[in-house]
């Protein structure tokens, strides 16, 4: 098993009233990309702030690259990209990055090189006030690379970005992971699943309700597949037989569980020429996300 760059065991942090996270256990290994999903208020930001040592924890243990959270070694090993971070508009990108390099005790040449790496080289000496949102996120990403961290926590890194900027950012994230950094990306949307993440963790009301690869999550959720049959002449009798719902009088759509899928398909194909077309619609990412993020569907 690869080295764990993040090992969370039974992490609990509650707030007065409501909110927080309860008994979260999670592991991220070197070079792994994990998506942390959940609604607004599900506890993603709380979890991240606990992992960064910004928020004291009530219980449990957090180790970053083997160091206790909050220690100088842990701080040096973790990089963070806050949601929609805006740096001081009066500074240039280069000045801001060099400051971070000094704080991280990293050579300033590395900072300058990273500006080029994220594609901000030509704009490096312009004030951040003139940057677009995509450029600010790239600058934020550049500081994540400083000092080759063992773990990177990215909070909604692509929210509000156009598709090109989003693609650029994911290319950077892939590069980061390829160099051995474990990456955790928090999001309340499915966009992060679209990216090639290795594993998905879903938070609901502060507890972890899923933590597996996408195919495994689909298998565990056992969501129904939908079969849509086109039968212009006898849609009525098909509806009586398979149930589901009729669409436009000529089509019938019904749901099957994975264990009965092949049997049902056999029945449909046995009808021969009565059926003019057949569509199999696998469960969507939205359905999967809804399954795990709604109450009553605990694993």
């Amino acid at each position, binding site marked *: 098993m690869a080295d764990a760059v993040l090992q969370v065991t039974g992490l609990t942090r509650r707030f007065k009233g409501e909110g927080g996270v309860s008994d979260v256990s999670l592991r991220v290994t070197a070079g792994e990309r994990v998506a942390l999903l959940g609604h607004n208020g599900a506890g993603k930001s709380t979890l991240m702030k606990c992992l960064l040592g910004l928020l004291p924890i009530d219980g449990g243990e957090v180790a970053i690259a083997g160091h206790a959270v909050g220690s100088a070694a842990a701080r040096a090993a973790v990089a963070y990209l806050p949601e929609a*971070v805006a740096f001081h508009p009066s500074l240039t990108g280069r000045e801001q990055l060099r*400051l971070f390099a*000094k*704080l991280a005790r990293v050579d300033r040449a590395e900072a300058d090189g990273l500006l080029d790496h994220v594609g901000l080289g030509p704009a490096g000496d312009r004030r951040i006030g003139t940057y677009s949102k995509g450029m600010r996120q790239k600058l*934020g990403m550049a500081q994540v690379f400083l000092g080759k961290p063992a773990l990177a926590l990215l909070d909604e890194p692509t929210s509000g970005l156009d598709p090109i900027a989003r693609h650029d950012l994911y290319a950077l994230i892939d590069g980061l992971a390829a160099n051995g950094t474990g990456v955790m990306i928090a999001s309340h949307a499915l966009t992060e699943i679209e990216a090639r993440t290795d594993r998905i963790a879903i938070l609901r009301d502060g507890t972890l309700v899923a933590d597996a690869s996408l195919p495994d999550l689909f298998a565990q959720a056992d969501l129904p597949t939908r079969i849509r049959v086109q039968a212009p002449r006898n849609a009525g009798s098909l509806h009586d037989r398979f149930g589901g719902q009729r669409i436009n009088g000529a089509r019938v759509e019904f749901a099957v569980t994975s264990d009965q899928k092949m049997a049902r398909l056999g029945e449909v194909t046995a009808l021969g020429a009565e059926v003019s077309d057949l569509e199999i619609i696998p469960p969507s990412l939205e359905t999967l996300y809804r399954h795990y993020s709604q109450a009553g569907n605990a694993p």
Partner: protein
Amino acid sequence: MSRILAIAGTEFRILRRNRWLVIATALLSVFALALTLAGATISGALGVDLLTVSVASMTTLAVYLVPLVALLMSFEAIAGDAERGSLALVLTYPVSRGALLAGKFMAHLAGLTIAVVIGFGLAGVWAVAAGGAGAESGLALLRLMVGSVLLGAAFLAFGYVVSGISRSVAAAAGLAGFVWLILVVLYDLVLLATVVWDDGGVFSRHVFPWVLAANPADALRLYSVTASADQALATGMGAAVAALPQGAALVSLLAWPLVGLILARLVFGWRVP
């Protein structure tokens, strides 16, 4: 230490770029020169040199203006970073909250010192050129500069406290204005009303001087006039000065920046970014 210096360097650059340094220096210079020019007409009548009158006028100016400039420099320090989202980020670096505060304080204090030295220094140069300065009034000017920097340091620290407890920059700005109004304007008005009401009683004779010295803004008035009898004459603060032990005003001026910074560090420590 190198991290504190890196933060201070960046903060000073920001101070320069967003024109605060120029505005503060220009503001103090214009008022100081105007007061010195105006003082030229009355210094003869009082029988003291031009700079003595000028320093007395500039002390009153400094009591109002220096706290204002200091608060304007510092009120954004923590709330601004928090609002931009960069506070949480900086705190994930191996840099302590105390170091972050120290770096900002160094930069802001340097900016304030430059504004005070240039602003009041110009008035001194003018007075020397006009032949209206002597060793005694020169020393008074120096005391005014030192006192002003200390007063500014106290209000920089108060600005960090305000910034640390405010959820937004707008709230911090409002609260900073409130602090200025209370400590610089209302405090004196209430004291004045109490002295009038007391009519020379125990409060006026024994308590009032201490309460006056306890406020850093008034401590500057006291500290500045103790320089000479001429100063006391020009400002009319002699009675209060006489009732206090020597150095009480300076102790107040030295203590408040320290108390303010400790308070700011505490408040900053409680804040969850």
